[in-house]
């Protein structure tokens, strides 16, 4: 008998905001920090904390740059982040199939 699919769930995505941030980034090429904050209806410090944590795990790219003279931070998924998110969704799908 194989492992229960819950063992395939990524503990990094159990926090609701991290889950939503990963889902957001999975749907876009990249997104500005401000757009992500507004879309997820959260605050700068909260988003900053979670995006930094995911960056530290190598799952999210955080690129700081400028548009004109205005600083702009852009978020995107790394290849590892895409794979980890796909695996997490696959584990959830497996759980839905358990009778």
């Amino acid at each position: 008998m194989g492992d229960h699919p819950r063992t395939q769930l990524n503990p990094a995505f159990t926090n609701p905001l991290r889950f939503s941030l990963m889902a957001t980034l999975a749907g876009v090429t990249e997104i500005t920090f401000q757009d992500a904050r507004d879309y997820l209806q959260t605050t700068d410090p909260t988003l900053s904390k979670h995006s930094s944590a995911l960056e530290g795990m190598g799952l999210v790219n955080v690129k700081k740059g400028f548009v004109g003279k205005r600083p702009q931070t852009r978020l995107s998924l790394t290849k590892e982040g895409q794979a980890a998110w796909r695996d997490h969704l696959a584990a959830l799908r497996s759980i839905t199939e358990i009778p």
Partner: protein
Amino acid sequence: MNTPNAHDARTLLDRAEATSRQAAGFSFAWLSYLALCAGGAITSVGLAYATTTDAPVLPAWLAGGLWIFVGIVSIAAATTTSPPSRRGFGSRWTIMMAAWVILWTITSVFNAHFTLGQGVAMAAAFLAAAAIGLVWEVVALKKGVK
């Protein structure tokens, strides 16, 4: 970590799907692409007409070039003001720009040998490229992320 049951897992999957799908919007860069294709179509027909009637070719280059100029200068502004684009936009854009470059090369290099029918065919090809680019983006947006 609390283990989700089947119902919780379904709810999370639905939430992930909706969040991913709604995060992206239509990129205004495709309006610039439309302008580039309009310029290509105008130039193709204009040059073919000039070739077959011995009319001057300058008006065709100017009329088409104006649209192409608008398309090129608007790309940066369109990209910065657009909502986040659907994952895969870079690939879609590169392929469609490659198609435009091929069509434009044919128009610029071979226009001296164009019949009017060939000019119209090239214009139709530019129109098809514009339509494919826009439809491809809309389909990607509707389809969401699996």
